[in-house]
């Protein structure tokens, strides 16, 4: 009798977990569709134009360094466009639902606030994934064009693309966190500041070591560990020289991103759960 009750309880738990995953997937799918409908992926057209122009004209300007310039330009554009999407679309994910009052319709159904946030987050991550994959293929094709055949740089750019994607995932989570409690303009500004400071993390560490005052040292050491270390995800320049990161490095940065994203989304859920929409 007791075992039947336990089985029923476990089955209910599994069903509820599956239901939760299904709901998150449904929200993510909708967020992706909305981004596509909002013509977010139109940036790919601009990207293709930049790369095509670079492939044709950069050879004459760069003194025979077109392959390096194409990788630098392509991956930098991928990061830049991705950052813009992560910031400007990310900060509007929740705000737009509140503004249009569609959030009431969502929460009238059995959808948790955490599920809503995670679903929205995964939807934008899917948009960014499509974006970076298409751009990665674009850079590879441009390399094939300028090399008139196979180019050894092609396999080395993909680990850098993966690191860029991880950085964008981190940034999207941060944008979502800020947008869960502030206006879109302020959220965009704060996220951009985190992006900038995240690339200065090495300086924060240097500062913390070189400062005389112990309180300042503690402050900067704290900031160094608290803020996301985005400099670790910059592998564009070595990729342009045909150097790929080690598997260990990619795994470690992936783990760091995962941990950080979990922390940020938990924080965002915490703030969002307390928010009153009345």
């Amino acid at each position, binding site marked *: 009798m007791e075992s039947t009750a336990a089985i029923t309880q476990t089955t209910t738990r599994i069903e509820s977990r599956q239901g939760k995953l299904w709901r998150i997937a449904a929200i993510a799918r909708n967020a992706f569709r909305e981004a596509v409908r909002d013509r977010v992926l139109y940036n790919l057209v601009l990207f293709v134009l930049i790369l095509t122009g670079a492939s044709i004209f950069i050879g004459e300007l760069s*003194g025979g360094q077109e392959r*390096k310039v194409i990788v630098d*330009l392509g991956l930098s554009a991928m990061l830049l466009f991705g950052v813009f999407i992560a910031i400007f679309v990310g900060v509007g994910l929740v705000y737009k639902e509140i503004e249009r009052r569609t959030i009431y319709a969502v929460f009238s159904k059995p959808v948790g606030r955490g599920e809503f946030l995670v679903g929205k987050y995964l939807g934008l991550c899917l948009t960014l994934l499509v974006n970076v994959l298409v751009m990665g293929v674009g850079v590879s094709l441009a390399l094939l064009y300028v090399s008139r055949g196979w180019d050894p740089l092609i396999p080395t750019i993909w680990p850098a693309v993966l690191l860029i994607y991880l950085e964008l995932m981190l940034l999207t989570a941060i944008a979502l966190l800020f947008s869960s409690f502030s206006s879109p303009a302020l959220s965009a500004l704060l996220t951009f500041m985190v992006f900038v400071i995240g*690339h200065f993390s090495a300086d924060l560490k240097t500062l913390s070591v070189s400062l005389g005052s112990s309180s300042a040292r503690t402050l900067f050491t704290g900031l160094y560990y608290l803020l996301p270390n985005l400099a670790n995800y910059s592998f564009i*320049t070595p990729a*342009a020289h045909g150097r790929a990161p080690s598997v260990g490095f990619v795994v470690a940065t992936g783990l760091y991103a995962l941990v950080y994203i979990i922390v940020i989304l938990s924080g965002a859920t915490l703030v969002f759960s307390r928010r009153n929409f009345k």
Partner: protein
Amino acid sequence: MNDRIKNLVLGLVVVIGMTCAAVLVRHLDTLRPPPDPNAFDENLYLDGKMARRVSLGFNGLAADWYWMRSLQYVGKKVLNSDHPVPLDDLSSLNLKLLAPLLDTATTLDPQFLDPYEYAAIVLPAVNVDDAIRLTKKGIEANPNAWRLYHHLGYIYWQQHDYEAASEIYGRGAQIEGAPPWMEAMKAKMTADGGSRSTAREIYTRMYEQSTDEKVREMVHVRLLQLDSLDQRDGLRKLFAAYEARTGKCPSSWKEVEPVFRALRIAVDASGAPLDPSGAPYVMRPGACEVDLDPESKIPKK
């Protein structure tokens, strides 16, 4: 119908407006005073370290930008110059920004080898200390790039510092993957640094190794110059033999033309032998001396 007319008018306004704007820009271009060739180049706002810091992970792209700026900077000065200048002697062009531009490019991307190589070829005539500093910086950041040792050895060789050149070639020869001729260059520098054969060896290796068309062109001209120097030595010997035989120097090429014909040396209509660029040599009548034609593409120095 009204809407169609409205759309047509608006479309025309856009097209005509853009055309007018383009015409105005062209007119403004003619009104703008031409740039003063004697004006001082404005110093760079950012040094390499600062540029790297503010590049936010886009340092590779920023390095490409500075590299292209360096090429444009030199190219513009060459185009504005009223006389042809060889790539390895741009001292007359006042290239004071070239070293900072290349320095910034290499600080942004220390593994970018082309700016170091460009510095080693172009900068010695402008500022040899900058050339040595940048090439050494490249070696420090890329200790396995044996080509940079070759370039540093070339700078020392140009400065007639054969001991330093020999030492650098020796260090470069020890790098894995370095070609065997690096070791041979070390010995050649010690034994025979100032000779023409050493110069030929250096330029031949540079020609083989370089992928830059401009550098290869410059090196090719230097190799032709060495050929011409050899030819002129040969002609002087011929004049000496003629003088020993007849007691006077030849007064025209016609007097020695049978020798050229026997040796199958190319001559022009006047019987003057041709230098490696195809221009006829000029004889100094009665002086047993030969010079390059003013129109010759072979460098005078």
